[in-house]
């Protein structure tokens, strides 16, 4: 518009800067534009965004160069989620007023934040995608996309309206009401929103308020696509399908899974381990017991072996001692024999245990001296033994009779008194052995009946063998030829002895009978 006087252009002014003419028409136009701008500003302050858009648009219809009105309109579009419309207004605003225009700062702020610009573009794309789903009669997918849109851009009025309308179409009036109420919070007097809300209230009735006259802060909507609207927590639109709630659900699932594992699987594993441990303990205990048993057996064997070793050592020592003593006696006997002292030589020979002499030369000497002295000491030895028997020194009697038998193993009376002495000492085995020896070897002895009688007194002696007197003899097989002449001599001696025995029989029998009486008495 130009000045009617100077034809200079009047841009956003009604006083001509060239001639100072006040253009009344231009003044009215600018005043009207400003008045509508003020109306729009007042409505914007009370969040009547739709009313503000109407007033500001009216203001710009009067004066397209009203920068404040255009900038505010851009801000309101931006608040309503209409990013492109806001940018358009700001670009036009800058076009009309390049300097001192805050719209340039708005544009710069958006351009300097590409992520936000990209997110805003994504919101628009999702909204358009929801519209395309609707055109394909796929309301479910449209609702899902619109939920995402309102989550990403909580002030996107058109998305709320469309979502509310879809809920209404699906007769989910509570959800529709909540969505539309959210839109009302952003834009109080949006005619479309209010119209939809009125329709919802008509179809479903008004929502009830709680006792405190305040809407519930969280409200669960019983529909297939549950929504939670946080009335008192600011701008965010919340939904069960949000990423955060999904994360919480996954976390709860992990906790429940861990609890199940802890309560069910861990005790089973622990029980199995305890069972294996107990089984291992039992096995090890059995092994330890077996090892202990083996150790005990080995200890017993060691003890037995030690005792055997000690016994062998003792026996060996005694044998050595006996052999030494026997050799000493043999030497003394040989000395007496050489000195023609046959009585002493014979007594010493009688004391020697024949088994203790192992040397062949010694055996030969022993036999020579024995044969030479036998006839002179046998009777003396028998008398000593008999004397001991009479004195009830049965051990001495056994020793004496043993010496007699060493010198003359055919001396039947010595055999008899050996049996009697053993019987009176209680050694029935040896007693029976000597009695049997007498019965078997001397069947013509006049003591045979007494021997049988005493043998019967001993009871069952069937398992006992006769004593082998000759086994202790030292007669060497190698010397058999040398001793043959001695044997013949012995035979004659035995004949003498038999005579002696017959001579003694009367006395001995008498003694034996008297002894029997004593023995039975004992």
């Amino acid at each position: 518009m130009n000045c009617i006087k100077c034809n200079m252009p009047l841009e956003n002014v009604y006083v001509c800067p060239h001639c100072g003419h006040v253009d009344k028409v231009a003044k009215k136009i600018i005043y009207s534009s400003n008045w509508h701008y003020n109306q729009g500003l007042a409505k914007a302050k009370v969040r009547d965004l739709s009313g503000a858009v109407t007033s500001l648009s009216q203001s710009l219809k009067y004066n397209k160069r009203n920068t404040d009105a255009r900038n505010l309109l851009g801000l309101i579009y931006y608040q309503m989620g209409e990013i492109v419309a806001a940018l358009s207004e700001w670009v036009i605003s800058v076009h009309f007023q390049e300097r001192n225009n805050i719209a340039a700062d708005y544009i710069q702020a958006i351009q300097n934040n590409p992520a936000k610009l990209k997110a805003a573009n994504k919101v628009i794309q999702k909204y358009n995608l929801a519209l395309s789903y609707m055109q394909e009669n796929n309301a479910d997918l449209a609702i899902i996309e619109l939920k995402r849109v309102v989550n990403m851009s909580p002030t996107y009025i058109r998305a709320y309206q469309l979502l509310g309308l879809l809920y209404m179409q699906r007769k989910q009036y509570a959800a529709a009401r909540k969505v539309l109420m959210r839109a009302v919070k952003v834009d109080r007097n949006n005619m479309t929103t209010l119209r939809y809300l009125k329709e919802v209230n008509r179809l479903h009735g008004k929502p009830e308020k709680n006792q405190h006259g305040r809407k519930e802060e969280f409200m669960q909507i019983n529909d297939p696509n549950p929504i939670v609207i946080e009335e008192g927590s600011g701008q965010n639109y919340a939904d069960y399908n949000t990423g955060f709630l999904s994360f919480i659900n996954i976390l709860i699932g992990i906790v429940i899974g861990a609890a199940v594992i802890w309560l069910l699987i861990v005790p089973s594993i622990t029980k199995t381990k305890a069972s294996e441990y107990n089984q291992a303990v039992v096995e090890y205990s059995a092994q330890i017991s077996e090892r202990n048993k083996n150790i005990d057996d080995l200890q017993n064997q060691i003890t037995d072996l030690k005792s055997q070793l000690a016994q062998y050592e003792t026996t060996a020592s005694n044998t050595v001692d006996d052999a030494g003593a026997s050799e000493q006696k043999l030497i003394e006997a040989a000395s007496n024999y050489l000195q023609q002292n046959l009585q002493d030589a014979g007594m010493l020979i009688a004391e020697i245990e024949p088994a203790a002499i192992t040397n062949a030369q010694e055996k030969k000497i022993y036999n020579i001296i024995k044969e030479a002295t036998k006839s002179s000491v046998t009777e003396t030895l028998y008398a000593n033994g008999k004397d001991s028997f009479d004195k009830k020194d049965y051990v001495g009697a056994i020793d004496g009779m043993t010496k007699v038998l060493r010198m003359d193993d055919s001396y039947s009376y010595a055999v008899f008194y050996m049996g009697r002495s053993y019987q009176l000492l209680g050694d029935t085995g040896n007693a029976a052995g000597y009695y049997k020896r007498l019965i078997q070897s001397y069947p013509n002895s006049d003591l045979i009946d007494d021997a049988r009688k005493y043998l019967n007194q001993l009871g069952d002696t069937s398992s006992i063998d006769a004593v082998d007197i000759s086994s202790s003899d030292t007669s060497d097989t190698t010397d058999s030829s040398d001793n043959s002449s001695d044997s013949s001599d012995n035979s004659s001696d035995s004949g003498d002895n038999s005579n002696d025995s017959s001579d003694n029989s009367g006395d001995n029998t008498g003694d034996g009978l008297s002894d029997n009486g004593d023995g039975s008495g004992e």
Partner: protein
Amino acid sequence: MINFEEELKKFKPSLEIDQAEEAIYKNDLRDVTDILEDMMKEVKIASGNKRF
């Protein structure tokens, strides 16, 4: 009573960021001053035609 089909048809796709330039060009920037100027031009043309 709302006709859902008609209401749904009112919702149009939003312009994306790269379509902002197009939106600017399509913006109707004519205001009352432009209308008055057009009217004055028409009046001048009409008065000129009457003189001749």
